[in-house]
């Protein structure tokens, strides 16, 4: 018995010294990893640690160690404040619109593009629809502003030309959501097709051949071959999208936000910015941020589990 233990110890020591030697041999690799690891520690993990100010009344001059602990006070405030409930519902509505109106568009576009035979047409089309993705939200929003404005905007000029009333797209609260979602579609729909096109490209052409022999038209082929074949990609992207439930893009909404449409346009991200950084309520808005990150993470895990139960691969 003792002998066995001794032998194990020897093996263990040998292994650890081997590991030590391996680490020493790769010391320059660790030097290479250092700047990157430092980056993630400083700008990603220290802020995660900084989330504990959500349980404090954080005072900048006292720091995290000196500030007073208040437990779940900020979270309680969050769920009783009418402001926050309004913001949460605005956020969820925009998210729902994303899922309903944006999510299917790249799939449809990819299906349509797949039916195109001309290579030149396809390439030209792709070059054009990928382009907006590389423009900042400021550029996208600015372009829509010069087109939608009441004085001299081309859209209102057209509306007027046909004898209708001009519409105040930029200030009217009821136009905020349509404007928002159309901008999302305009900027991202083309880019979103890439991954579906790649999935479609890997489908065995024999399947289409067989379907044609059986007399299936193009719509039927799409329905019975292409769609089922990219099903798992659709599900993975849906999971990722749902995980981003509260990530609607601070920049985009912030740029569209004004005093007239605040009631429908204020979302969690913009609220965290104004309440936290503009009004100095660090702890309260950090609590909102934590709530948001946590919901996102939880949703990915739940949806991923559901997907696995349905026999799909999931994202992890």
């Amino acid at each position: 018995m003792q002998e066995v233990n001794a032998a194990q110890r020897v093996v263990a020591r040998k292994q650890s010294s081997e590991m030590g030697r391996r680490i020493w041999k790769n010391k320059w690799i660790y030097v290479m990893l250092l700047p990157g690891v430092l980056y993630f520690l400083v700008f990603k993990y220290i802020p995660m640690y900084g989330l504990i100010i959500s349980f404090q009344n954080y005072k900048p001059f006292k720091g995290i160690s000196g500030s007073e602990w208040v437990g779940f006070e900020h979270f309680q405030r969050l769920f009783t404040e009418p402001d926050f409930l309004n913001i949460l519902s605005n956020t969820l509505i925009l998210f729902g619109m994303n899922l309903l109106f944006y999510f299917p568009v790249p799939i449809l576009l990819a299906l349509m593009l797949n039916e195109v035979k001309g290579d030149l047409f396809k390439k030209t089309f792709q070059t054009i629809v990928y382009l907006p993705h590389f423009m900042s939200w400021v550029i996208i929003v600015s372009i829509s502003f010069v087109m939608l404005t009441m004085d001299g905007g081309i859209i209102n000029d057209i509306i007027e030309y046909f004898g209708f009333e001009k519409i105040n797209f930029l200030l009217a609260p009821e136009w905020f959501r349509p404007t928002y979602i159309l901008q999302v579609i305009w900027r991202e729909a083309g880019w979103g097709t890439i991954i579906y096109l790649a999935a479609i490209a890997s489908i065995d052409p024999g399947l289409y051949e067989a379907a044609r022999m059986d007399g299936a038209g193009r719509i039927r082929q799409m329905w019975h071959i292409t769609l089922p074949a990219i099903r798992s990609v659709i599900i993975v992207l849906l999971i990722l999208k749902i995980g981003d439930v509260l990530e609607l893009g601070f920049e985009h909404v912030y740029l569209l936000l004004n005093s007239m449409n605040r009631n429908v346009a204020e979302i969690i991200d913009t609220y965290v910015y104004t309440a936290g950084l503009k009004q100095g309520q660090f702890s309260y808005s950090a609590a909102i941020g934590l709530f948001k990150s946590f919901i996102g993470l939880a949703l990915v895990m739940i949806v991923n589990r559901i997907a696995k139960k349905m026999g799909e691969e999931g994202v992890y």
Partner: protein
Amino acid sequence: MVEDKTLGGRMFGIINYLLLTIIGLITLIPFVHVVAGSFTTSAEMAAKKFVIIPTDWSIEAYRFIFSTNTIFKAMGVSIGTTLMGTIISMFITALMAYGLSRKDVDGRKVIMFLVVFTMLFHGGLVPTFLVVKELGMIDTYASLILPTAISAFNLIILKNFFQNIPEGLEESAKIDGCSDFGILFRIVLPLSMPAIATISLFYAVTYWNTYLSAILYLNESAKWPIQVLLRQIVVLASGMDVSADLDSVTPPPAQSIKMAVIVVATLPILCVYPFLQKHFAKGAMIGSIKG
């Protein structure tokens, strides 16, 4: 797709092409409209409103926006942060990606997990702001670069690319007495130029588009990059305090000035886009499908 000669098939094809053409035009026309509008005279802009191709070319809007330092300054800031930022980001991303691609390195899985975890969960706006503030980076150009220096997504793409380089090449270099840095800079990087180029362009576009960092960390308007200035001029319709020293000149309509500023802020991206476009589809694929 094999040709479908039936009537239904043909109709389908025609409608499909038609719809795609319309979608393409809808995507493209706003850009064309803005560019055309920026090059037209105030008279033409006022007379006929649907300018797609200006008949009366003019650069008065551009002359106007470049008549003060504001735009030059903002362009300078954006160009500077784009160049510096891309170099810094590329350098530390490449070092880290290479380290993580080496299968004989202990702890690489842990680091990789920590990197991926930051894509799922993060501290958020306020705690990040406090870190940047504690580091004394408020109102410095470093705040436009360092807090977003590495994109986890780009790192993973590059790491996967490095992993596909045959290990034999590195081993033989090592036998010849090449150091780890030597292997990276003399063998791995030269073999990875397509990936390096793509990711550099991704970083460059991100830095050129920087807006959030600027409004979070820069209080002094003199340090604003072009995107923030663009918002001032178009979205808030203020900024551009140039009318005072240009009293004698009749300013062109605000609309064409706004369009000219949009064009100026977009132009660099349009210039790199053809290069970008060659590679990104593949790059985006490696990143999104986990291997």
